[in-house]
């Protein structure tokens, strides 16, 4: 804004030069924006393009579908292809795992952060460090021993083995964000409730959880998306057609030589709709959670 005031005092030639530079800068911004849109959207456009091809037309050299057809979407939703005969079951499995992981990550994370951050239990820093350590270990590095252990427990092909793994990896993030967020709530709130005779459980339920609502939403969204998008553990631990989740089923398409690509892409899109919708709905809260949590400078 201040540049406008300064411009008025410039000679006309300098003003023209500044204006020229601004046009150039605007043109540059426009070009960059266009490039960014194409770059970001291309693989997603490809997904939509192929899903709209009628069967048999997948092997074309077109850049847009000749006759857009919703055939493959109908095929997925009515379980019309033999690859998709358990689609809704698999969708429900994904949802079940997502909801359970969210619930337990929120429950364990909030209880732990309450005990460490609000009640200041002795040696609480040890638990914080355990959580931090879990956060910085790559989950895929533990997949092989985890698989062996689950086999020993007889939990192979059981969704609870996946839920256990994902809760273990999602809760540390929950503990960070809750502890970080909890610092903004004065400890006097808890203390006065305790003086009024509330037990720690009552303080947790009636005071801590309601005040933490924004952080709970942020972490809940994170945990739900983590569980929905996770692949490796679900692939290793769930192998039967009726126990597997959507991403595992989707990957199974790839292993066949005659992949029905239009069905595959339609499945990929249907699978992507819930997380994208949730992401855009809770975007602001999640961004807040991201900066509150581990990565904060």
């Amino acid at each position: 804004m201040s540049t406008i005031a300064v411009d008025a005092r410039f000679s006309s030639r300098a003003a023209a030069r500044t204006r020229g530079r601004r046009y150039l800068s605007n043109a540059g911004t426009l070009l960059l924006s266009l490039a960014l849109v194409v770059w970001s959207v291309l693989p997603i456009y490809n997904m939509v393009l192929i899903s709209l091809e009628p069967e048999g037309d997948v092997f074309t050299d077109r850049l847009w579908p000749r006759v857009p057809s919703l055939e493959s979407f109908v095929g997925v939703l009515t379980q019309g292809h033999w690859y998709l005969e358990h689609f809704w079951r698999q969708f429900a499995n994904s949802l079940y795992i997502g909801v359970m992981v969210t619930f337990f990550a929120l429950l364990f994370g909030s209880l732990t952060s309450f005990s460490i951050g609000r009640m200041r239990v002795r040696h609480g820093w040890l638990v914080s460090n355990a959580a931090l350590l879990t956060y910085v270990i790559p989950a895929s590095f533990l997949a092989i021993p985890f698989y062996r252990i689950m086999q020993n427990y007889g939990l192979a092909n059981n969704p609870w083995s996946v839920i256990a793994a994902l809760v273990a990896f999602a809760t540390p993030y929950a503990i960070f964000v809750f502890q970080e967020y909890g610092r903004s709530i004065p400890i006097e709130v808890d203390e006065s409730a305790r003086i009024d005779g509330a037990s720690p459980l009552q303080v947790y339920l009636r005071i801590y959880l309601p005040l933490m609502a924004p952080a709970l939403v942020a972490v809940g969204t994170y945990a739900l998306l983590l569980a929905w998008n996770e692949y490796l553990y679900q692939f290793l631990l769930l192998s039967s057609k009726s126990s597997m989740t959507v991403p595992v089923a989707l990957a199974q398409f790839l292993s066949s030589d005659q992949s029905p690509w239009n069905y595959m892409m339609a499945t990929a899109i249907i699978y992507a709709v819930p997380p994208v919708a949730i992401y855009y709905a809770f975007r602001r809260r999640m961004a807040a959670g991201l900066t509150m949590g581990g990565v904060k400078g």
Partner: protein
Amino acid sequence: MMDSVSAVDVRPAIRPRPLSRSLRGHLKGGEYAWAVAFVVPYLAVFVAFVAYPVVYGLWMGSEPGLYRELFADPIYQTTVVNTILYLALGVNVKMFLALLLSGFFMRPGWWVKALLLIFVLPWAVPQISTFISIHWMLNGEWGFLNNALYALLHIEGPSWLNDRWMALGAVIVSHIWKWTPFWTLILLAGRMAIPLEIRDTARVDGATGVRGFVYITFPLLANLYLICTLLSTIFLLGDFNAVTFVSGGGPANSTHVLATLGIRDAFEIAHPRLGVAAVMSALPLVIPLVIVLMRKLRTAQVQL
């Protein structure tokens, strides 16, 4: 936080503490039981599903003979080269792009905000969906990329995934495509946290454009940038999906990284111990990273 901790510690320091007191700290009997009960569920999860697998894995990969077998494997040797390239290019190109783009998205205007909404799409869409789409896009005969090249420029594109270097390049670019938005958002939040007065004062003093970035913005962002780089190194080291779905480790097992080679050894050639050894050979890199990151993250506070 610091004040209240020291306030708690000062009071009991006068008398020698009985054992029960040093265990319980300031909490009274019933309260202490509650506090412990609240921590137990997470601790149980940690012990059963993190600590136990770690120890089990260390035990599985503890035989020296395994490493002789591993290092003699030519696939492992190419895998190490791939992993280093993937780390060096994937992390740094992505973080540098994120740093530049976070500056771009600081610009005012509704359409920059609208652009940001489109820009985060790669991150919002599940990995499996997009990586499978990229895999098909790069198909030499029917893929979208070669169709587009032919339609627009009349170039016959190559079979992207049939050559080791192009396939590895495709994996790296896919990773950058997928994760740049996430780190851009983090760095954007970091830039937003820089108080307006600092930027305004700097501007008045003539630090605008590149100079403003070099002398003002970057020094304030440097710590965050370092933490993000280290975290993204760890995340990338554990990345299984990009390689599995974009190149599938092929052609002829030439584009594996350690995370995918471990799973391949354990489940495709049914030699779990060798798989664990492959993963554990990354420990000389992982352990220092973990130590530095744990220190950095524990003390992470906005230093402004």
